[in-house]
């Protein structure tokens, strides 16, 4: 088993928000908290409008884990980044550190009192008994322990959002890009950057570009 990852295919996402709805409903996420959301760029420009479904990317070197002052985060053997809500103090540092805006806080009242952090768990619950009521109430469903994959990915109607073992989903995405290129869409394109972004079992560490080769960099 490699690492669990999501990938969203912008060529397929139709901004239906089905993934967002499925996540909120299945995990009973409270009003005001969105573990997943769909972001659209170039809105209204024909041929250039693209949408992507974003949630926690379960980073291999997660900045939220690095900045947490109470060290409430942990990574499972499947590569899923989770946190313990009994330790979280709701400070919000993780929210500032995350480049995807994944950590969410329930904000209530005139002074914006903040709850403990809530985020996508890759439908794998938290540090409570698998499938228990306590786990569901704090973290939502534990579909991995039920032998399933995250609902957002499994119910995606266009299969734009796929999630699971990074080796398998990278293979699926690779096949799509190859087919598109073969059928004349985006000729010459390759599924570049995958190993840099997600790594692989034998992928070498990416070599940083020297500053001298970057225009304008010191």
């Amino acid at each position: 088993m490699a690492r669990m990852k999501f990938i969203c295919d912008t060529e397929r996402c139709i901004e239906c928000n089905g993934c967002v709805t499925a996540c909120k409903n299945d995990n009973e996420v409270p009003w005001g908290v969105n573990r997943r959301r769909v972001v659209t760029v170039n809105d209204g420009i024909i041929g250039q409008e693209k949408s992507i479904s974003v949630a926690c990317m379960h980073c291999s070197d997660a900045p939220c884990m690095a900045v947490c002052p109470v060290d409430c985060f942990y990574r499972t053997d499947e590569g899923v980044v989770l946190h313990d809500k009994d330790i979280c103090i709701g400070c919000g540092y993780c929210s500032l550190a995350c480049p995807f805006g994944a950590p969410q806080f329930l904000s209530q009242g005139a002074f914006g009192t903040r709850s403990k952090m809530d985020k996508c768990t890759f439908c794998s619950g938290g540090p409570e008994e698998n499938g228990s009521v306590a786990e569901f109430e704090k973290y939502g469903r534990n579909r991995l322990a039920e032998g399933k994959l995250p609902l957002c990915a499994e119910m995606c109607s266009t299969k734009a959002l796929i999630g699971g073992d990074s080796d398998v989903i990278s293979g699926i995405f690779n096949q799509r890009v190859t087919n598109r290129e073969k059928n004349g869409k985006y000729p010459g394109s390759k599924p570049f950057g995958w190993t840099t972004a997600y790594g692989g079992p034998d992928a070498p560490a990416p070599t940083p570009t020297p500053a001298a080769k970057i225009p304008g960099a010191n």
Partner: protein
Amino acid sequence: MKFNFKTLGLCFAAAALLVACSEPPEIAPKAAKRPDVAPYMGANNGFMTKGWAPGNQTSWTESIDKRNQGQNENSRVK
């Protein structure tokens, strides 16, 4: 006799002041991370899929990989 009372009073005062030095620290113990149970151990509810044995990592991995391929319509339609 009067001198003795004074000494006794001073002793009490000194003892009362020293009580503060014996107070236990009021720092909460650091919350310890609890170990999480691996997903291949199964869930304690009625929503588990069939075809794999809880506690058997290999069968869980095979089951998840099979389900993973369900997201690939290129293999599903053939």
